[in-house]
């Protein structure tokens, strides 16, 4: 497979947008002294950000300085909105002039609650899900589900690196003790789910109708029981093996991807103690190598072949 390609990374400082000409069908970027019309490419794989504000704004520090009288942030928000509008169009233009497109820029972010709602309506099993804002409601749920509830972010968790510190948040189990001793009487509306007592987890990468699934045995280590990303000292990695979704689950999940108009993404499941596959969420820009490498699926090769066969 000998195909020329261009890879555009997030915040690639050596690349700059030269111009867009709608009539001539030109979207020209310059990188390392070489210019490319991105509309000349006939296949595209969209994953994560691609173009970012940093690719368009030469010195973002300048935006930190005040510009207007009595107003410190309007100009910054305004320029960033202008940049994001342009970035939206750049991706849209490339996708719409390409013959083959895998992934879409507009699908890089999904609403977790919307996806859970759709999954339920299609018949997938999902955890009992609530959004609550009072300690009284939490205590009621804790008693109803025998101390088996968890909380996690509705959007993304905290994953922040400052100059001096790294900050992280994960899925957390809430016990009656924790709720009564640690939490306030009321709080920002928060996502609560009944904890699925898992035999193992499943990560399933979807690509144009096919699933590449992996089972993750994360239950035996206390640190990874609630969130497998929390690796303990004893085991730095949970065991991961190739896996096949049951036909019924696969059919429902395919339908969900179709309803969401997604051609690719990663779905997360917990398999509970009864063997039921409980759907958790879809990551539309999922890291497929974490499934491809342990299971030897060679997904990157499959994607390359799909992009080449046009």
């Amino acid at each position: 497979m000998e195909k020329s390609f261009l890879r555009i990374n997030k915040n690639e400082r050596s690349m700059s947008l030269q111009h867009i000409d709608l009539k001539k069908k030109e979207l020209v970027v310059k990188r390392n002294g070489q210019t490319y019309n991105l509309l000349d490419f006939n296949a595209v794989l969209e994953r994560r950000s691609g173009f970012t504000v940093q690719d368009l704004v030469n010195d973002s520090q300048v935006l930190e300085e005040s510009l207007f009288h009595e107003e410190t942030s309007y100009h910054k928000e305004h320029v960033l909105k202008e940049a994001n509008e342009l970035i939206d169009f750049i991706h849209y233009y490339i996708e719409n002039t390409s013959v083959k497109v895998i992934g879409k820029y507009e699908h890089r972010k999904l609403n977790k609650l919307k996806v859970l709602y759709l999954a339920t309506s299609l018949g997938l099993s999902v955890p009992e899900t609530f959004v609550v804002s009072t300690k009284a409601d939490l205590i009621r749920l804790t008693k109803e589900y025998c101390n088996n509830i968890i909380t996690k972010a509705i959007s993304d968790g905290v994953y922040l690196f400052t100059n001096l510190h790294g900050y992280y948040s994960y899925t957390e189990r809430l016990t009656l003790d924790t709720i009564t001793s640690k939490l306030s009487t009321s709080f920002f509306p928060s996502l609560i789910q009944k904890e699925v007592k898992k035999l193992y987890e499943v990560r399933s990468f979807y690509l144009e109708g096919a699933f590449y699934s992996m089972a993750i045995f994360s239950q035996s280590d206390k640190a990874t029981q609630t969130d497998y990303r929390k690796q303990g000292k004893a085991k730095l990695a949970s065991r991961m093996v190739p896996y096949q979704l049951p036909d019924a689950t696969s059919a429902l999940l395919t339908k969900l991807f179709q309803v969401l108009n997604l051609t690719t993404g990663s779905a997360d499941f917990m398999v509970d103690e009864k063997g039921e596959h409980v759907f958790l969420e879809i990551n539309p820009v999922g890291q497929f190598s974490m499934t491809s490498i342990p299971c030897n699926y060679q997904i990157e090769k499959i994607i390359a072949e799909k992009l080449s066969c046009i």
Partner: protein
Amino acid sequence: MYIDLKELALREAAKMHYPLFYNFIIYNELLEKDENYSLTDFKKFNERLDCDIEYQQPSKLISKIINFNEID
């Protein structure tokens, strides 16, 4: 080498303004840059990947080897 994790303390008065998972944020101090280990910052064009690879030693090193069983 393992990095000690600590729980981020929220002020009581602030707790009501944050989602619940903010009560469980953990953090660690990042390792100091080793001045004796000098990996020269440089950029190299990778022909196979068709993109620039930037090699840059961060001022604070980030390690993923952290032990979640022992949080202070």
